[in-house]
């Protein structure tokens, strides 16, 4: 009896390997520097992870649906620049700038979704192309200039990035809220089930009467929506943006999603695990910074952690540490 209980505990632990790694990691850093788990710092990390995290939520849908989205970084730059520009435009102002920016970003997501979902083009290449094209679009839009809010005192726009409610920073609330919402969408609704089915076996999904193209299309819209939200926070937090704010984030986002245990082949992963993946990356960055290590040590550590985490994950699944490839 005790034996089976221990076994099933073991199985649960094995499945939550990433969570355990996270806890151990936090404990280690906390022992090293108690400031690490000070409430301020934890909030600080979660807040600064919020942008990456919200993007990762959207990309989780895309990846579970069996595709990639490398365009989120340039899309973030785009949405931040656009919302700031419209904010400064007297015809818009903050109240109109935000919905207009969301609409424009969703259009970009729709292009991704159309090309990949309906035309069935390869997602890696399409989103790579979009990465470049959206960057060009952003530069054209901004004329290469930074966008800044001139009169920061006179706008309520800062609330998304700087405000807080009940003592919790708004970006953290948005991250948590979106994570909960999207988590439920993915885990509990028919749409979520369809995303798993399409990513797990697109052909079988089609044979089961699931509108594969539409599902893929929607995952890209969700991704774009998340990017727009992240862009809003980004713009609001810094009250200004460069054309390159999001550059390189696509791979960080992907790393977080993978670290959370989503398979690049599609069909597996959860929102909760992605959140853990995001937090691990955020706390590594913060912990190493607090430890006074150079930023590049963080690169090396991230490398090792990603590979170990994914390795352990698949090793528990196949029941063997070493791969059976001859």
């Amino acid at each position, binding site marked *: 009896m005790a034996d089976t209980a221990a076994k099933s505990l073991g199985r649960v632990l094995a499945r939550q390997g990433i969570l355990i790694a996270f806890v151990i990691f936090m404990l280690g850093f906390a022992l090293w520097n108690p400031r690490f788990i000070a409430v301020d710092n934890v909030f600080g990390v979660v807040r600064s992870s919020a942008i990456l995290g919200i993007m990762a939520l959207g990309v989780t849908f895309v990846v579970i649906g069996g595709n990639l989205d490398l365009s989120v970084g340039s899309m973030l730059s785009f949405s931040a620049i656009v919302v700031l520009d419209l904010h400064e435009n007297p015809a818009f102002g903050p109240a109109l700038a935000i919905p207009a920016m969301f609409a424009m970003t969703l259009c970009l997501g729709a292009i991704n979704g159309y090309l990949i979902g309906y035309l069935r083009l390869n997602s890696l290449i399409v989103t790579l192309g979009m990465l470049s094209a959206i960057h060009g679009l952003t530069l054209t839009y901004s*004329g290469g*200039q930074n966008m800044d809010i001139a009169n920061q005192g006179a706008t309520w726009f800062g609330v998304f990035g700087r405000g807080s409610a009940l003592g919790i920073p708004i970006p953290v609330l948005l991250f948590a809220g979106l994570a909960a919402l999207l988590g439920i969408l993915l885990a509990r609704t028919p749409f979520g089930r369809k995303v798993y089915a399409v990513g797990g076996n697109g052909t079988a999904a089609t044979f089961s009467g699931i509108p594969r193209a539409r599902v893929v299309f929607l995952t890209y819209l969700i991704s774009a929506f998340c990017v727009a939200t992240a862009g809003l926070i980004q713009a609001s937090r*810094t009250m200004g943006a*460069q*054309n*390159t704010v999001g550059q390189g984030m696509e791979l960080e986002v992907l790393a977080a999603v993978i670290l959370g245990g989503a398979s690049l082949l599609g069909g597996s992963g959860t929102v909760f695990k992605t959140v853990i993946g995001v937090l691990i990356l955020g706390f590594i960055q913060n912990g190493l*910074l607090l430890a006074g290590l150079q*930023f590049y040590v963080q690169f090396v550590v991230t490398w090792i952690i990603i590979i170990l985490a994914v390795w352990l994950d698949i090793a528990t699944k196949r029941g063997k540490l070493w791969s059976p490839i001859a």
Partner: protein
Amino acid sequence: AQSVTIGITQNNVGVDSYQTTYEQAFIAAAEQNPDVEVVVLDAGGDVARQIAQIQDLVQQQVDAMIIWPTNGQAVIPAVRQAHQAGIPVIVTNSNIAEEGFDFVRSFSGPDNVTQGARAAEIMCDRFKAQGIEDEARVVQITGQPGYTTAIERASGFEERLPEVCPNVTLVESQPGNWNREEAQRVMEAFLVKYDDIDGVYSGDDNMGVGALNAALAAGRAADITFVGATNFAVGYDAMERGEYWGSIYQSPVDDAEAALQTALDVLAGEDVPFLNYFDTPKITQENMTEFDRPVF
């Protein structure tokens, strides 16, 4: 005069407003002069692409070439090729390494080492005014690792600070990659880590404002002296609000016009000084009214 063609290969247009404004100013200045045609290229921050562009310009046999190096050393052999092809080369904004000086007619741009030094002086003067010059603790947020401008500004600052304020400690440096968001994140960590920060030096105002934002959010901005470089409009505005202390005034328009003029002077056979710095004065809350708000 006979019409001349001048080629320029820039570092990375669009990465920030400075470089974009530079490009616009350069093209505008060239259009003013009916005898000048320009070929404007952008290396996108990639050395390999810049070297290719230099080679292309050599092949097109432009009359003179202006280079904004992505890497002050790697372009030297390509510059030599231009030199050997008889094309005068002018380096702009950030200089190439000394080995290349033989192949270059002139450098036109700001003196980044001096800028770093001046920033140290601004900071020190402020501490003295506050009477904390013997205990102040400073953190530094540097530009993109590996870029000449970032390196020179940091070294200028780090060398000059102990000379003027020997008892001020520079506790830590981290790069902010010319990126406001990253600078903000770095500053947040600094604020958690150090209870006592009296000054922040940032490699440019863009990052400086990121650091300021972090301090404002933590409610500690009033205790900190923020000094930056390359006064951006955001920095200027923050100074006006009294949140940001000082910076170095550097105009991309001056930068671009100086480069073009230097090239024209060289082509006209004039005697041009090798180091052709344009002035980049200190700007602080105290003297800011003497300067126009930057356009970028």
